[in-house]
């Protein structure tokens, strides 16, 4: 428990970082995969969309997803959060990383 003492006052920040990491794992990485596949299809064929059942992934939709990915990355960059922080299996692993991250950020910000 003493190990996590430096994080005691940061529960709200930790919750948001945890939420960002779940959002990355569940949404952003899948969006990224879809845009890569769609880019390949558009590059190698005359296709104007990828159709999955009744759902259609057009150039416009691909661009919207790309915007989500880019703005998410900008958001992380603004707060010096690197994607590596989200490379964890168990929440305690994330907490350990957040502790090191906090020390680094505070040091850089003086």
């Amino acid at each position, binding site marked *: 428990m003493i190990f996590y003492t430096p994080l005691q006052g940061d529960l709200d*920040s930790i919750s948001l970082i945890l939420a960002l990491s779940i959002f990355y794992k569940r949404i952003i990485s899948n969006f990224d995969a879809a845009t890569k596949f769609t880019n390949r299809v558009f590059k190698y064929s005359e296709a104007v969309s990828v159709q999955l059942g009744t759902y*259609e992934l057009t150039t416009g939709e691909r661009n919207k997803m790309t915007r989500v990915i880019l703005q998410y990355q900008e958001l992380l960059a603004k707060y*010096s959060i690197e994607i590596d922080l989200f490379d964890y*299996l*168990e929440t305690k692993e994330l907490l350990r990383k957040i502790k090191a991250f906090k020390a680094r950020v505070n040091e850089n910000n003086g």
Partner: protein
Amino acid sequence: MANPFKDLKELNRDLDNFLRRHRTVIYNHSKRISDFFEMACYNNIVRFYENNGYVTQIKNLVKQKFRYKCSTAGNPDNFSFFEISKTQGNQIKLYEIRHNLNVQSSFQKDIFTTPDISVIHPNTIMKDEDFYHSNTKYYFVENHSLITFCEAKNFNPFPELLFNFVGIINELKPRLLKPKKANGREHLSASLLISGKSNAHSDRIKKSLEGRYHINILYDLFTIGNASFSKYNIVRLRKLDTLKQIKL
């Protein structure tokens, strides 16, 4: 540079703005997350062949749309796929990378299973008019037309998932359950592609299964797993050869 521990209000506001701005896109597309993961796997298999010297071509667009086969039902002729080819001397190696295609068991001709991604010999899809006892037709490939296959799972790896894959290999490609003296070069061996990260136990299971069988189990497909299909890393993957080629 903002500090997420000191500028909490600003972080909250930025997150609210981000979600408000993109909520429609996120909501609309989030229903397709599992399809997107399968797309990632399909994309990686195509990447593997490109990095292994194959030329890829997209076939069977329907009204300028790449029709992605999302389920096991339906006539594969109505869906798009990647064709891969490699010319060596006077021979051309030509294959199709398909998704959700029914494949015949290697033990019994009238039972089938449907791997997420299959690499097959070209123009080998068959039609069975009697399978359903109705007018609906059943489309499949005979077992000898299947070269290799992949299963894509958008989960964290767990023992049952990993061991179940051995059952599918036993049904479709039992010869892969014997260790090979040498690795092949042309095709990716049967592979289980998993999005989630592994723990120490699933790492032990992977090591054990890959030690016993000629297969690939790849975890963490969005990060480390994704890199497995790069030009420099594909040498580490288990591969197969096939003898059937078309003379030019």
